[in-house]
C-alpha cells in the first residue's frame, strides 16, 4: 500500500485541531506518518483524553479511609473489610446506542464488565441508567426495545446479574439517548490488579478475540463529536459484542490473576490496542515496542492503521515476565482463547510500532498520553428557567384521578417490563431485586451485603445544575439508607452536551461543584467515573445528566424493603415537607410546567435523616422504609402499598392530610431529605424520640390496613386498581 500523505488538511479530517496538529509536528520535528496521526487523534480525542474535563474533575473529593483505588485505573475500589474490596464504575455508551441500540448497549455492558475484571475482581452485579426521549418521538420505542434487549442479551449471557437501574423519559433526550452501565465486582484487596506496566524487557501479550475492522475510530469520530443528519452513517464505527467470548475472557483473566501470572492487565475498549498500550506504558513511565505482525487478525490485509484503531471487542492486554508466557498460554488454551506476544517494554519512553518489519510509529509516550488539559470558556446561559409562580398552577379537583394519571406516567410506572428481561438471580447472591430503592447483593462466603443504586433527576439539573447534582447524590444516599445500608462511595457518569459551548461548560462546572459538596458532606468519595460530552444534535444538548452510582454496606442483618408488612402498623414520615412543586414530576405531567427551581437542598438535614434511619434500622425498629423522590408522598405511599412481591397481599393505608399547605404540594411535592417508614405501634415513641434527638422532623401520617389508599377527605383509590395501572403502563407505552 502506498504511504498516505499527511498534512494539515488530513489532520483536520481526522478531527485534530490546528493547534493539536502543530503540537504534534513541532514535538517530533517532522511530518507524522498516517499511523502516527491516527494514534494521536484517538489518544487526544475527548473520549480518551478527558481534555475538557480533567481540570474540573480534580476538584472532586477522591480520598477516604476505605479508598483502595481512586480514579486513574480502570475502576475504583474501596475496602469492605475481611480483606475484601469492591471494585466498581459507571460508564456511558450513549452515541453507539443511539446509532445501533442493541449492539451499542450490549458493548457498553461488555466494556464496563471488562473494566471490573481487568482489576482482578469477579463482577457480581450490574445496573444500568437509561434515558430516552418522549414517546411522541418516532425513534424512542425502537431505542427502548433495542437497548433493553442489548443490556439483557449481554448481561444475561455472561452471567452477571442486572440488579437495578433507572429508566427516564424526557423530550430532552429525543435525539440523544443515554446508556450508562455500571458493574461492581469483588476482589481480595491484596490481589487487586493494576494496568501499570512494569519491568523493562517484560512482554506485552494480547488475548481474546482476533482484531478485525470493526469500530475503527469509535472513540474519536463517534464519541467525541455531536450528532447531525449524517449520524446514521457512522454505524460502522459501532462495535459488535460477543458475550460468550467475554465470559471466557473473564474466567481466563481471573485464572491468570489467581496464578499471579500477570504484572499488569488492561482491557481494550475505546481506541483498542492504541489506548491500552499507550496508557499502560504511560502509567509505568516506560516505553513500548509493538510488532503488529504478531497480532491475531480476523482478516487478511489489514493495515497498521486499521489494526491500531480497531475497536474489536473482547480483547485484553497484559504485561508479563517472559518465564510466565507459557503458563498464560495454557490458561488461554484451557478457555479456547487465542493469545499472542505482541511486544515488549523498553526504557526510552517511546511508543514504537512495526508492521511488516518497518517502523510506522515512533512517538513519545507522554506526548500521546498527556495532552494539555483545556480550560474551555464557560458562561451561565442567558435564558433563565427560574420563573415560576405557584398560583399559575390550578389545584386539581379530583385527586384520585391525578394519582391514577401520575402512577401510569412514563417516569413513575413500574419498570417490570425492563427488569424481567434481565437475569437478576444469577450468582445466587441477590437479596433485594430490582424495583426497590436500592439493590442488595451479598458477598458469598461472608456476612457482608453490598447495596447499590444509580440516580439522577435531570429535570432538577436542567433547572439548576449545581442543586440538581447535589440532589442526585442526596437521592442516591437516601436510596441506600432505605435498604439499611451506609453510603460509602460513588462513581459518576457525567453526560453533557458539547464542551465547545460555554453554557455546557458552565453546566459541567456547576454539576461538579454540586457533586463535590454533597460527597464531602456525606463522606462518600468519588473513586471512578466517566465523562461523556457531545450528547447533542444540531446544537441542542441534552439536559445535563450527572448520573450518580453509589454503593454502601448493609448495617442490618437483613435488608429493609419498601413495602408495608402488616395491618395496624403505623406510617411515619421523617423529614420536613415544604410547599414546593416546581421541578416536580407532578408539575410536568399534570400541568405541563417544567420551570422554576428544584426542591430545596439541605445537606445537613440529609445527613441527619440518614443517621436516624440507619440507627432505627439497626435497632430493628423499622418494618419498611421508602425514599421519597419523584412523585412525592402519594406515589411513595402507593408503592409501599403494592411493591410486595407477587404472592404477598397488598395492603392499603389511611393517611391524614397536612392542611397547612396546598394539598398538591403535600401529596406530590418533591421535598428532599424525607423517608417514609412503617413501624410497629409499640415502636412509634422510640422512633419519634430518635428523630427528635437528631433534629429530624417527624410526623405520624396514618395506619397500614384495608385495601384502599385513602387520603382523608381528598381521595380514596383501590390499591389493586393502582397496582394494575402502574404495573401495565410501561408495556403499553413501549408497545403502543
Amino acid at each position: 500500500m502506498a504511504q498516505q500523505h499527511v498534512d494539515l488538511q488530513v489532520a483536520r479530517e481526522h478531527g485534530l485541531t490546528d493547534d493539536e496538529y502543530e503540537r504534534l509536528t513541532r514535538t517530533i520535528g517532522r511530518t507524522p506518518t498516517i499511523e502516527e496521526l491516527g494514534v494521536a487523534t484517538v489518544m487526544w480525542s475527548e473520549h480518551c483524553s478527558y481534555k475538557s474535563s480533567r481540570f474540573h474533575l480534580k476538584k472532586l473529593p477522591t480520598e477516604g479511609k476505605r479508598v483502595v483505588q481512586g480514579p486513574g485505573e480502570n475502576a475504583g475500589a474501596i475496602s469492605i473489610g475481611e480483606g475484601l474490596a469492591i471494585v466498581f464504575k459507571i460508564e456511558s455508551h450513549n452515541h453507539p446506542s443511539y446509532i445501533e441500540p442493541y449492539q451499542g448497549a450490549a458493548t457498553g455492558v461488555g466494556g464496563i464488565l471488562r473494566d471490573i475484571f481487568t482489576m482482578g475482581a469477579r463482577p457480581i452485579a450490574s445496573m444500568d441508567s437509561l434515558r430516552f426521549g418522549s414517546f411522541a418521538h418516532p425513534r424512542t420505542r425502537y431505542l427502548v426495545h433495542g437497548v433493553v434487549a442489548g443490556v439483557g442479551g449481554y448481561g444475561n449471557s455472561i452471567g452477571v446479574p442486572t440488579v437495578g437501574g433507572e429508566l427516564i423519559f424526557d423530550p430532552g433526550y429525543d435525539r440523544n439517548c443515554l446508556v450508562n452501565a455500571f458493574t461492581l465486582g469483588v476482589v481480595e484487596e491484596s490481589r487487586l490488579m493494576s494496568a501499570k506496566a512494569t519491568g523493562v524487557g517484560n512482554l506485552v501479550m494480547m488475548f481474546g478475540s482476533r482484531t478485525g475492522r470493526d469500530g475503527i475510530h469509535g472513540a474519536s469520530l463517534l464519541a467525541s463529536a455531536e450528532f447531525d443528519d449524517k449520524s446514521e452513517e457512522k454505524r460502522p464505527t459501532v462495535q459488535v459484542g460477543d458475550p460468550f467470548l467475554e465470559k471466557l475472557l473473564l474466567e481466563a483473566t481471573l485464572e491468570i490473576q489467581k496464578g499471579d501470572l500477570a504484572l499488569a492487565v488492561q482491557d481494550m475498549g475505546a481506541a483498542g490496542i492504541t489506548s491500552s498500550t499507550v496508557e499502560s506504558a504511560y502509567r509505568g513511565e516506560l516505553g513500548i515496542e509493538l510488532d503488529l505482525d504478531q497480532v491475531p487478525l480476523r482478516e487478511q490485509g489489514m493495515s497498521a492503521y486499521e489494526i491500531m484503531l480497531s475497536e474489536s471487542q473482547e480483547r485484553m492486554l497484559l504485561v508479563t515476565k517472559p518465564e510466565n508466557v507459557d503458563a498464560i498460554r495454557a490458561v488461554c488454551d484451557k478457555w479456547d482463547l487465542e493469545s499472542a506476544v505482541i511486544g515488549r517494554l523498553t526504557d526510552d519512553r517511546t511508543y514504537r510500532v512495526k508492521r511488516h518489519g518497518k517502523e510506522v510509529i515512533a512517538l513519545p509516550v507522554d506526548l500521546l498520553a498527556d495532552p494539555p488539559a483545556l480550560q474551555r470558556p464557560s458562561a451561565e446561559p442567558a435564558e433563565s428557567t427560574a420563573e415560576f409562580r405557584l398560583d399559575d398552577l390550578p389545584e386539581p379537583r379530583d385527586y384520585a384521578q391525578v394519582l391514577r394519571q401520575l402512577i401510569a406516567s412514563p417516569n413513575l410506572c413500574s419498570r417490570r417490563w425492563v427488569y424481567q428481561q434481565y437475569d437478576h438471580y444469577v450468582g445466587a447472591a441477590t437479596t433485594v431485586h430490582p424495583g426497590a430503592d436500592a439493590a442488595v447483593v451479598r458477598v458469598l462466603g461472608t456476612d457482608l451485603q453490598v447495596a447499590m443504586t444509580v440516580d439522577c433527576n435531570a429535570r432538577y439539573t436542567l433547572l439548576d445544575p449545581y442543586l440538581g447534582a447535589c440532589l442526585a447524590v442526596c437521592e442516591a444516599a437516601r436510596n441506600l439508607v432505605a435498604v439499611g445500608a451506609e453510603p460509602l462511595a460513588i462513581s459518576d457518569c457525567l453526560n453533557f452536551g458539547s464542551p465547545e459551548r460555554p453554557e455546557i461548560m458552565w453546566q459541567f462546572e456547576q454539576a461538579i461543584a454540586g457533586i463535590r459538596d454533597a460527597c464531602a458532606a456525606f463522606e462518600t468519595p468519588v473513586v471512578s467515573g466517566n465523562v461523556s460530552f457531545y450528547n447533542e444534535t444540531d446544537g441542542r444538548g441534552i439536559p445535563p445528566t450527572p448520573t450518580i452510582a453509589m454503593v454502601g454496606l448493609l448495617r442490618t442483618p437483613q435488608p429493609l424493603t419498601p413495602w408495608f408488612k402488616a395491618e395496624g402498623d403505623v406510617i411515619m414520615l421523617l423529614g420536613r415537607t415544604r410547599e414546593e412543586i416546581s421541578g416536580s414530576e407532578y408539575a410536568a405531567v399534570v400541568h405541563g410546567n417544567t420551570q422554576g427551581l428544584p426542591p430545596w437542598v439541605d445537606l445537613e438535614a440529609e445527613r441527619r435523616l440518614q443517621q436516624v434511619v440507619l440507627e432505627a434500622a439497626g435497632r430493628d425498629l423499622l418494618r419498611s422504609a421508602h425514599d421519597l423522590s419523584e412523585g412525592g408522598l402519594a406515589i411513595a405511599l402507593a408503592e409501599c402499598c403494592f411493591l410486595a412481591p407477587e404472592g404477598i397481599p397488598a395492603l392499603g393505608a389511611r393517611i391524614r392530610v397536612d392542611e397547612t399547605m396546598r394539598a398538591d404540594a403535600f401529596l406530590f411535592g418533591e421535598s428532599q431529605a424525607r423517608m417514609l417508614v412503617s413501624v410497629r405501634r409499640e415502636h412509634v415513641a422510640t422512633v419519634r424520640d430518635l428523630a427528635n434527638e437528631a433534629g429530624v422532623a417527624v410526623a405520624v401520617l396514618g395506619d397500614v390496613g384495608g385495601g384502599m389508599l385513602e387520603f382523608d377527605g381528598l381521595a380514596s383509590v383501590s390499591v389493586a386498581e393502582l397496582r394494575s395501572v402502574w404495573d401495565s403502563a410501561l408495556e403499553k407505552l413501549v408497545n403502543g
Partner: protein
Amino acid sequence: MKWGVVTFPGSNDDHGTLHVLRHVLGHEAVSLWHKSRDLQGVECVVLPGGFSYGDYLRCGAIARFSPLMAAIADHAAQGGLVLGICNGFQVLCEAGLLPGALVRNRSLSFICREVSLRVESVANPFVNMALVGDVWRIPVKHGEGCYIADEATLDQMERDGQILLRYCRADGTRARDPQESGDYNCNGSLRDVAGVMNATRNVFGMMPHPEHGADPALRDVCWPDAGVPDGLRIFQSIAGWIADRGQRSAVDSMR
C-alpha cells in the same frame, strides 16, 4: 452424598449451584470440566443454567458433543441420576437423554421472574418432598424455555408420570383452554410443562431454577419464616432418594 456440577464454556449458574449444594445443603460437590470424561464418582450430575458455547447454533446443540457429555450419557445409562436446569435441560433434550425440545418463548423476550409450579408426580428421585398438587414458587430466567413435543409423546409422559412440574396460577389452577394460559405459563410450553423426566426415571430437566429458590438467606428477605424453600426440596428429594437407595442396598447385601 457427592454431587457434580458441570462447567461448559458459558455456564453461568455453576457457581450458584455449587454454593447451594455445599453451603446450604452441606454436601460434597465437585466441579466437572467439559473437556474431561471423568465424573469423579459423583452420584448425581447437575447440568447448570447458562449459555453453553454461547448458545450459538441452538441452545445446547454444541454442548451435547463435549467429551463430558459422553460420560454423562454412560452414567445415565447405568441408572445414575442427572438433573438439568434451564440450559442443562436444553442440553439433555439436544443429547436425546430427555424427550421433546425447548424453543423460543412465545413472547420472543427473555423472561426473568418467579413463577408458580404445580407438583404433578412424586414417586420419583427428583420431586418427592411434596404432595401432588402442592404449589411451589421458583424463579425462571430464559429466552428459550417453551417446551414442545408431539402429542403422542406428551400423552405417554402424562400417563407414565414423567411430567413432574407444570406452570400454574398462584392458587394451583390452570386454564382449561391453553390459549388462556398466558397469565401464568411464562413461555408458552405445551400443556404447561415446566419439568420432565425420562422413561427410566433417572434423568430430569426443568426450566425453573431450583438453585435460585433454595437459599433461606435469600428467601427470608421477602418471606421470613416460610420454611424450607421450594427450590431446596428438589435437591433434598435427590439426596433423600440416594440415601434411601444406599440403605436399601445395604439391607440387600446383609441378606
